[in-house]
């Protein structure tokens, strides 16, 4: 009985040891090198990843401000004051993404860092000719921001916690405040011109 016990125990232990050293013994992975996530990534990819993550953060900020406004925690002035730089930041990120040839719809909105890195790598390798993915009538950056935030909201509606209250895109569009693309000032739905800088609104 004692011997049987020892044999069973040794068998289990032996199996565990074999399982452990198998990756080293196996010829395919011998001397294998860890797939590198960061340092192996080309510099341009890393830059693109960072931009995508910046865009992610900028959209999140906008959503947070909208949620706080919706919940009555921000006055109109506070809202406009906080929203203007938040949107300006988002527009700036979009401008930089544009400069790198990443147009609307090429990179998914709402990404984790890993997904951003994968997207960046894909965009770098694919390099689709500009214009092929661009929409027929090119949108201004601000219009693009509106569209992307709507897409983002839709995605967040599926997976993020602190999303805005609304669920229907159309309704969101109708209730969502508009902003001047030039100065970021909050404007009414019916306005044709910005009350702050006078620019014609699209």
């Amino acid at each position, binding site marked *: 009985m004692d011997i049987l016990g020892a044999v069973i125990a040794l068998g289990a*232990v032996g199996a*565990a040891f074999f399982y452990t050293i198998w990756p080293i013994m196996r010829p395919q*992975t011998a001397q294998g090198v*860890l797939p590198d*996530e960061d340092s192996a990534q080309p510099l341009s990819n890393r830059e693109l990843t960072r931009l995508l993550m910046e865009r992610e953060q900028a959209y999140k900020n906008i959503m947070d401000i909208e949620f706080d406004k919706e919940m*009555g925690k921000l006055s109109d002035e506070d809202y406009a004051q906080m929203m203007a730089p938040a949107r300006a930041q988002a527009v700036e990120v979009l401008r930089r993404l544009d400069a790198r040839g990443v147009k609307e719809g090429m990179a998914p909105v709402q990404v*984790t860092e890993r997904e951003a890195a994968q997207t960046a790598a894909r965009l770098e390798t694919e390099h689709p000719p500009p214009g092929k993915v661009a929409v027929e009538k090119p949108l201004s950056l601000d219009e693009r921001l509106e569209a992307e935030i709507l897409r983002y909201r839709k995605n967040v509606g599926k997976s993020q916690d602190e999303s805005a209250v609304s669920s229907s895109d159309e309704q969101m569009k109708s209730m969502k405040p508009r902003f001047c693309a030039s100065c970021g000032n909050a404007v009414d739905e019916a306005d044709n011109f910005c009350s702050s800088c006078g620019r014609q609104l699209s």
Partner: protein
Amino acid sequence: MIAIQFGHYSLLASLVLAVFGIGACIFGALKRRADLIAAGRNAAVGVFWLVSGASACLIYLLMVRDYRVEYVAGHVNNTLNGFYRFSAFWGGQEGSLLLWLLLLCVYAYVVIRQNRDRNLELMPYVTATLMATALFFLVILNFVTPPFDTLTAPPADGRGLNPLLQDWGMVIHPPNLYLGYVGFAVPFAFCIGALASGKLDTDWITSTRRWTLFAWFFNGVGILLGGAWAYKELGWGGYWAWDPVENASLMPWLVGTAFLHSVMIQEKRGMLKVWNVSLIIITYALTIFGTFLTRSGIISSVHAFANSSFGWAFLVYLLVALVISFGLMIWRLPELQSEHEMESFFSREASFLLNNVVLVGITFAVFWGTIFPVVSEAVKGVKVTVGPPFFNQVNVPIGLLLILLCGAGPLFAWRRTSRKQMNRSFIYPSVVAVGALLVLALFGVRHVYAALAFGLCAFVVGTIVLEYWRGISSRVRHQGERIARAAWELTMRNKRRFGGYIVHLGMAILFVGVAASSAYQEVGEVRLRLGESFALDGVRMRYEGIRESTTPQYRSAFARLGVYRAGFRIGEVEPEKRLYFTPPQPTTEPGIRRGARSDIYAVFAEADPDGTATFKFMVNPLVNWVWAGGVVFTLGSIVCFLPERWGRRRKKRA
């Protein structure tokens, strides 16, 4: 014998594998060798299977009452039923340490499976950290308190399980608490992974958010179950005594609560990185410290079920873990700078930070009170006992501030809130709080702390109702939903925020119960003849008879007491006095008549030969609110934990 040998060798082999795993993971990560990392990972999986096997062996040996094993002979006997034989697995020193290790290995296994193709940079260090913790327990289980040691002359009957542990609450409380304690090792391991690998973004936080929540939830529920057990089983009429081991379970929960709040600031604003790293290191250290307090017997406690002299090993491990963790943090300090500055004191960030300071403050006070007897003995040679008065005096005012923050925090916006908006937000909860205070004053509540606690809890409830009302009315306005649907959608679309509010609501209910039952408890001790009665706080208890019964484990005497209110009989309670045969030990089982307004709690102290009996009576107002608060806390935690897409209405496509 097979099970004994298998268990013994499995633990020994696990130790070797753990050492190899740690080395392979760290060396592999440094040299970027995928094969070594895979071997380290497999070693951790091997440890998981071997430790599971060893645990199964010990459970089997307990179930078949194999008295050749010292642990089995010491913790079960011939009369113990299967349920308690199973729970004897964690009824003693060796078994409970094995349970710790088992849970750790299960978590490590799950983490490895979850991250097969994620967090590749972090995982070798995460596995190494988890295995280092496992290694510590394996050293103790192999060389200090081996669970599979055998006796040369096995007894015919075992010593049995401590009678106090023979209660369903005690069966689920320790594993529950351990689920929490051990769970904190996962976010800690990811934090160490982030520090060691230099990937210091929020990935380590988002990857472990659910783990932290899981650990924190079970830690909390474990504390509540412990309280419920103490109330029902120990017979002193309370549920919390600031006992060192209770404190040991509370401390990681408090710091874990702080961590859960402050990570949100890092996720949203890229701030408080050093603070978050420190919090999770401290939380982990406190879980090890808690296990040390429970297991070392260094401080006398109601939990002295398992005493030993290996406390030094825990302290050494604790010290090493702290030095390495904080060393890594200091090394990475330049990369842990905040990305933003705090914009205003009147912001969500600031209120979270203040809540953190308060939680850490309470933890420090509890820690100091807990270790003071040891410190005083070391310094002055006198063991000074620090009792509930110290803890209450220090923690009640800080606790009140915490309730205030619990209500105020949600009213602030991120970044900053203007004075006008703040006034608008604060007015409703404040009116509720003042209204509650006025009503309480009318009803004659004069206890300052209790009244403040009730008022502040009303403030918290006011805040939560306001937040729901704002969210619901917005949805009703924009989505045309009905109120119930709007409330559901609001909660399900913002699980983290509104689940958190439900947890706050649970805490408010719990605090009302704590304040009322500690400020307004009525106690009386009396000796009664058959037929005599005793009145306490409007309740009269009449001693109506005594009966005896015998079970295979114990002999017991029940005293029957009729309970009367305003002259009407509203029921009866039967406090019990038990005498266990093995081990011979008397216990008291209080008779409790539970009610929403108050519990009537009777303890049968002793029966004299002259027919008189001594009783201790207590009227504990609103004590059931503590448990009700616990249920709401559980619901809120479940909402926070639910998968993000769960429970939402699907959008209809036009």
